[in-house]
């Protein structure tokens, strides 16, 4: 039987079987498993049926805990049910997993295994999550490659029905979940043949039904719980046999034979590695290579990890094995060893004591590959070499340099075994240029249109704007087992010329490799513009050099900056994988397949780009000597602090893997304010200030998402030594008469979003197209503006207090406050960060921030550099992220702590009155800290207090010295997106706000889970298309503000900076001033809305004027003044709702895919908006 060959990633392979073999699917987004939910939702929306001819029901839940609960309920009601998750998501499922296993329930959860957050969060892959879940009593099968993920998904489904034990189908997050490989797709017939319908019926009959009532889920007591717990043993005992039976049946059908433990290697091997997951492929490849060299080595691949069959394990092990190295992709601090190591030790020990093994082999355990750390043949060989030593290290690590506790073993990093017949290509691209998409298509073309096997893996950096991607493509005549990044590429494509300066793009190039360079320079100029160090590499490695000005070709084909198909065509031409004509025909075929749905013009545009590519590509004859005068710039300024130089700069340059353990902070603590050292220079155009036109309104400063545009007012004398091109004019404040005003742009940090230009209201009266801010090319002004920026930073800040007369309660004044959140990695034009930055300006020097996981935690806390910074006094926001689900509680904990500290400090002041003196003590205790001046005075008192306490040795004095800063007001802010506030964290949010404690919540409402790629949340609008709501969100947005107002004592504001910036500032100030709980719900335009980001502020205005997003403030303090607490800050709708909706792709898409539904949702939305407005009006008009 011929089966389809498909080129897909691991997530799709797992979801394929899951969707075919289930009736109910409960989903929730979490990286890297989200695509499995997305596939399921899309397939169900498209009416794709399972093997029984019915379309599975897919439901998104509010958390992984919720998904597990729904799965449990559905299973208990007799339906075939599944879910997908990873990392903390799996941890949230554990309580239900115990129940599901205890009740002997058939199900398979598909897990893209990922690290757990410890000293830091990581989205990347290892086995920490599934190892944390292993005590729940689930069977665990590991798939090591994309093919095996699909195969194991089916074997697990077969086995769970027969054994009644639930299964985890585990594969490595990213490395397997996101790796694209050519595989053989299982057919419906294969799946049907593997699923015994009698067992399905039996599963259904075990379900709860009033037609056959019984009770399950009782509470049991000491008399019976224990015995009842032991009833399941027989089922666990049977699993190995059942799984092997399923594997054998599968082999009979499909031809691929698996075993619980698969041994590869010499029959008389003396050294054997035991491991599981994708690294088994790499290890197998290495073992085979070393076997050919006569080594007596082997590998045991663990497939069924739970229940662990010691008997089968020992049987799989060659009797000649003298040393066994068990490799775990997890860390269990404090244990006698990692889990698999312990299992192997136990299995061998039991076999020995049972007389089934003659000699006890030496067993060592090691850790590798945490958080997708590379695991290469060199490391495999390093482990084998270690095993050869007379005293090999136990509890070792491999792949890092542990220079502290010296766990790491040595290996020869140059050991490389990549087969000669495999073509290895590396592509350096930008997220925005479509490189990854094109490479996925290339893999598909090679995989599906040739006899070659093909593999693609994609590495992304942590930034959301200007993000770099590195694609690793392999293809060759045999299945590819090299599950690691390419180390010696014979083709390197650099899609952006400036990458040559920033990264060691040719470090991976093999001798004789081909370099394809996208160059804006002519063929005559290009060589001289290549940095000297890069020229040297090209010469030394004897590389062939081809260049193309892909941007010009793309521009001529109306494709903007999307150079993907152009570069792809050149790759095919140069790689010779197919004859050129055939390759171009295939590329065009794939273009039509991929883009056809998007319209004929898109297809034609891409065709034109493909046709133009080859003729614009030129070979450059590589000179014999490097002649360039361009030297590689230092990664960071020499002025950067030591930690930045020694650690951060290394990570920035891509050398983080080489940092030793001793370089890393021990507890996840990193310095604040490090983005300022990472000059990214990602925008070709930057705003330039026209001081003669500027009205000094401050709107540009307010909306800048990256805090790159700043203003100061100082005395003229401060400008005495200003650089020649530094601009300043008379300040237009009556309070600051006689002083000078300046605006300065950090051109190296600007992302070019143009929001500042869009919002600028000042126009030239003779040429209205010229504003007070206009975009201009960055390069010509780079040097001068770098100097100007340095000068600007040294100018004094406007004092926040001392009677400068500024109120800082309006946009004009606020622009002068120093932002303490700068140059984040957020998207260009981000709708969230302007609020975040504003918050930092207003309260930054006394803020504590609890940040829910999501976009805001990523742009706030993702290494290498972070944006929260500090002022000249060294004060700035403290920031931390706990989890996704617990952020409100995390912030509440902060409040409790600082309140307690302040309380105790006050008690100590009272107790130590004699030492401190009455005046100071009274001042400290009675301080009114409701404004900046008073806070500054209190700070001064604390300084005096510390001076008095210094040197005192009694405990109360030392305690007070230790706690003195707690006497100054702290502002606790709980920050997160709508996924957190409306869904996963809602219970906690509700509780924390209801507690009455003085916490401030800022909800950055993008109406989707933006960070994970735009899945629907309860904040998503009715009829909006989002992932997990492919048919349009069927229910209206939850009115979070109204829910919170119902308490009566919570300050609630709904804001949209683009519609009313003054109201935004008022809301922040009032929320902070309110001595109780407050919540601000901020409309945050987002890339996931399908808008041009430079139109973000206009979209905000449309949301308000259409009535969709009414602005209001509910201030409980007004009640005390006898006033109505609710003030409406926007007017009744005047813009038709459709003008707002259909200017955003998220709504517009549905009018194209399902116009009837779109029309229905629009009408319903209009009604809901009107009804809600009436209710708000009524509430606002009430007598107080």
């Amino acid at each position, binding site marked *: 039987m011929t089966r389809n060959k498909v080129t897909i990633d691991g997530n799709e392979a797992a979801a394929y079987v899951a969707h075919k073999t289930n009736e109910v699917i409960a989903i929730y987004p979490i*990286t*890297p498993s*989200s*695509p499995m939910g*997305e596939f399921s*939702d*899309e397939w169900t*929306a*498209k009416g794709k049926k399972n093997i029984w001819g019915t379309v599975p029901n897919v439901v998104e839940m509010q958390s992984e805990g919720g998904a597990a609960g729904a799965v449990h309920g559905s299973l208990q009601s007799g339906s075939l049910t599944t879910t997908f998750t990873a990392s903390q998501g799996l941890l949230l499922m554990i309580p239900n997993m115990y129940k599901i296993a205890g009740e002997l329930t058939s199900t398979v959860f598909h897990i893209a295994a990922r690290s757990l957050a410890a000293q830091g969060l990581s*989205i990347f892959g290892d086995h920490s999550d599934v190892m944390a879940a292993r005590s729940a009593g689930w069977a665990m099968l590991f798939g090591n490659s994309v093919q095996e993920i699909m195969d194991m998904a089916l074997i697990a489904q077969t086995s769970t029905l027969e054994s009644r034990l639930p299964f985890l189908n585990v594969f490595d997050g*990213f490395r397997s979940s996101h790796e694209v490989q050519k595989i053989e797709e299982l057919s419906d017939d294969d799946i049907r043949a593997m699923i015994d319908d009698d067992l399905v019926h039996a599963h259904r009959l075990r379900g709860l039904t009033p037609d056959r009532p019984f009770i399950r889920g009782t509470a049991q007591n000491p008399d019976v719980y224990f015995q009842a717990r032991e009833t399941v043993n027989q089922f666990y005992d049977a699993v190995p046999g059942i799984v092997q039976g399923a594997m054998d049946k599968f082999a009979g059908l499909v031809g691929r034979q698996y075993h619980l433990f698969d041994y590869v290697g010499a029959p008389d091997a003396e050294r054997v590695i035991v491991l599981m997951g994708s690294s088994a492929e790499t290890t197998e490849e290495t073992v085979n290579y070393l076997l050919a060299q006569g080594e007596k080595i082997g590998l045991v691949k663990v497939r069924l990890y739970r229940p662990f069959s010691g008997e089968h394990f020992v049987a799989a092990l060659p009797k000649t094995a003298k040393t066994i190295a068990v490799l775990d992709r997890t860390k269990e601090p404090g244990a006698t060893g990692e889990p698999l190591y312990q299992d192997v030790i136990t299995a061998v020990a039991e076999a020995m004591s049972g007389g089934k093994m003659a000699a006890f082999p030496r067993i060592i355990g090691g850790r590798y590959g945490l958080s997708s750390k590379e695991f290469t043949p060199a490391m495999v060989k390093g482990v084998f070499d270690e095993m050869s030593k007379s005293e090999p290290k136990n509890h070792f690590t491999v792949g890092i340099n542990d220079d502290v506790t010296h766990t790491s073993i040595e290996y020869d990093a140059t050991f490389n075994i990549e087969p000669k017949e495999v073509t290895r290509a590396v592509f350096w691209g930008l*997220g*925005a240029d*479509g*490189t*990854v*998409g094109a490479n996925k298509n290339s893999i598909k073309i090679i995989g599906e249109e040739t006899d070659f096997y093909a593999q693609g893996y994609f590495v*992304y950096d*942590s930034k*959301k704007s200007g*993000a770099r*991607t590195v694609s690793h493509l392999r293809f060759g005549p045999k299945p590819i087992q090299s599950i690691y990044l390419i180390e010696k590429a014979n083709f390197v494509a650099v899609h952006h010329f400036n990458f040559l300066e920033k990264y060691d793009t040719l470090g991976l190039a093999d001798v004789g490799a081909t370099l394809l360079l996208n160059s804006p320079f002519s063929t005559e100029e290009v060589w001289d513009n290549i940095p000297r160090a890069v020229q040297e590499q090209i010469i030394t490695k004897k590389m062939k050099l081809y260049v193309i000005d892909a941007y010009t070709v793309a521009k001529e084909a*109306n494709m*903007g900056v*999307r150079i993907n198909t152009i570069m792809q065509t050149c790759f095919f031409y140069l790689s010779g994988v197919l004859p050129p004509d055939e390759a171009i025909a295939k590329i065009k075929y794939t273009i039509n397949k991929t*883009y056809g*749905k*998007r*319209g*004929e*013009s*898109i297809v034609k545009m891409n065709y034109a780009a493909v046709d133009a590519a080859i003729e614009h590509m030129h070979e450059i004859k590589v000179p014999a000597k490097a002649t360039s005068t361009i030297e590689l710039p230092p990664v960071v300024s020499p002025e950067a602090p030591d930690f930045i130089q020694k650690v951060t700069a290394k990570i920035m340059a891509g050398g983080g893997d080489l940092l030793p353990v001793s370089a890393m902070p021990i507890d996840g603590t990193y310095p604040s304010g490090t983005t300022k050292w990472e000059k990214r220079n990602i925008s070709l155009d930057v705003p330039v200030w026209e001081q003669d036109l500027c009205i000094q309104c401050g709107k540009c400063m307010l909306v800048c998402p990256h805090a790159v545009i700043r203003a100061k007012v100082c005395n003229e004398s401060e400008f005495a030594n200003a650089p020649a091109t530094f601009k300043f004019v008379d300040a237009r404040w009556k309070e600051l008469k006689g002083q000078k005003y300046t605006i300065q742009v950090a051109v190296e940090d600007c992302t070019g979003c143009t929001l500042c230009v869009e919002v600028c209201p000042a*126009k030239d009266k003779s040429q*209205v197209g010229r504003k007070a801010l206009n975009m201009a090319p960055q390069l010509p002004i780079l040097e001068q503006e770098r100097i100007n920026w340095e000068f600007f930073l040294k100018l004094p800040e406007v004092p926040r207090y001392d009677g400068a007369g500024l109120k800082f309660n309006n946009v004009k004044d606020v622009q002068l406050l120093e932002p303490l959140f700068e140059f984040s990695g957020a998207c260009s034009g981000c709708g969230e960060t302007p609020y975040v930055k504003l918050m930092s300006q207003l309260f930054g020097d006394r803020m504590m921030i609890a940040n829910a996981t999501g976009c805001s935690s*990523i742009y706030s806390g993702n290494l290498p550099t972070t944006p929260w910074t500090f002022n000249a006094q060294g004060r700035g926001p403290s920031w931390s992220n706990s989890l996704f689900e617990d952020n409100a509680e995390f912030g509440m904990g902060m409040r409790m702590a600082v309140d307690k500290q302040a309380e105790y400090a006050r008690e100590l002041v009272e107790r130590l009155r004699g030492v401190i003196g009455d005046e100071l003590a009274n001042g400290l205790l009675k301080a009114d800290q409701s404004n900046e001046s008073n806070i500054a005075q209190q700070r001064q008192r604390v300084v005096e207090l510390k001076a008095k306490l210094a040197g005192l040795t009694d405990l109360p004095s030392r305690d007070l010295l230790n706690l003195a800063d707690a006497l100054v007001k702290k502002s606790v802010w709980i920050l997160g997106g709508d996924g957190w506030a409306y869904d996963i964290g809602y219970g906690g949010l509700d509780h924390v706000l209801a507690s009455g404690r003085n916490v401030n919540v800022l909800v950055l409402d993008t109406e989707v889970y*933006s*960070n*994970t*790629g*735009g899945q629907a949340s309860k904040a998503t609008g009715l009829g909006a*298309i*989002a*992932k*997990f*709501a*492919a048919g349009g969100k069927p229910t209206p947005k939850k009115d979070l503000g109204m829910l919170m107002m119902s308490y009566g004592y919570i300050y609630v504001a709904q804001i949209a900076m683009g519609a009313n910036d003054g109201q935004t500032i008022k809301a922040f100030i009032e929320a902070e001033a309110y001595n109780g709980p407050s919540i601000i719900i901020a409309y945050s335009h987002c*890339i*996931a809305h*399908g808008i041009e980001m430079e139109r973000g502020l206009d979209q905000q205005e449309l949301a308000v004027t259409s009535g969709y997003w009414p602005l209001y403030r509910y201030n409980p303090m007004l009640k005390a003044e006898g006033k109505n607490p609710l003030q409406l800050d926007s007017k009744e709708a005047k813009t038709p709702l459709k003008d707002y909706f259909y200017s955003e*792709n*998220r709504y517009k*898409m549905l009018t*194209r*895919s399902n*116009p009837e539904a779109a029309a229905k949702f629009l009408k319903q939305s209009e009604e809901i908006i009107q009804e809600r407005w009436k209710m708000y009006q009524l509430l606002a008009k009430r007598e107080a």
Partner: protein
Amino acid sequence: MNLTTTYMGMTLKNPIVSSASPLSKKLDNIRKLEDTGAAAVVMESLFEEEINRESRQLDSFLSLGEGAEALSYFPDLETFNVGPDEYLKSISVAKKAVNIPIIGSLNGVSTGGWTDYAQKIQQAGADALELNIYYLPTDPNMTSTIVEQMYLDVVRDVKKSITIPVAVKVSPFFSALANMAHRLTAAGANGLVIFNRFYQPDFDLEKLEVVPNLMLSTSFEMRLPLRWVAILYGRVPVDFAITRGVHTYEDVLKGVMAGAKVTMMTSELLQNGIGRVGEILADLTKWMEQHEYDSIEQMQGSMSQKNVAEPAAFERANYMKVLKSWG
């Protein structure tokens, strides 16, 4: 009363046609137009540029992503229906729903686009096609010869690619309108729709921005097409339609007398409802009865330049006379 007229080979029950407008977006409106007496409906224009723009936007939004956590931002739907399908479907649905002729309307940007979409509109069942050609030659180096040739090429290409009658909606901004009408006809146009009414942008003085501003027509605006149809009638062998400022039965009468085979209206129907067609037809009939006309055809072109007593009234003397009358 015989109100019958012919337009590009189609026999129409009267000379009132609903011109290209958003009215035709809803099938219900097309039914109402038939019920109230409209003789034919010109569908809203299919804009190739709009289709392309929408495609480009969709493509760009669907291509966003390529980050570790967000590989994309939107689900991959089965179909997006960008392109002309919705428009073409509306033609075939309208054809099935009513008995009056349905005339497609097309604004293309590329040669391939004009002919390709014209064929698709024909396949969808349209009885005729109106080419909504407009081009603002803002480049000072672009000569009228080049612009005129572009118009002629479009007409010739489209005519070659389809068999249904083709009308050209022309603008009044040609240096030699009569010559242009003649050449368009020679290029194959079966009808000339006089004139295309462009939306003119306005200024927002507070924001100092150029803003779109839709103004509905008034009867006064009919003077220009009235004059030109009167001049061209009998000189250029083509069917004329007047489509600007037709609001009343008097406007219809004037248009027909100038030489139009049909008069087209939109503003009146948008302002005062589709039912106005019926009222105008009743008034028209009444007037014709009162003035003892037998048929519409009887009066067609009766007041064209060649048929009036003072042909010069349509030329420069006309201008002079107006000025004098003010005095």
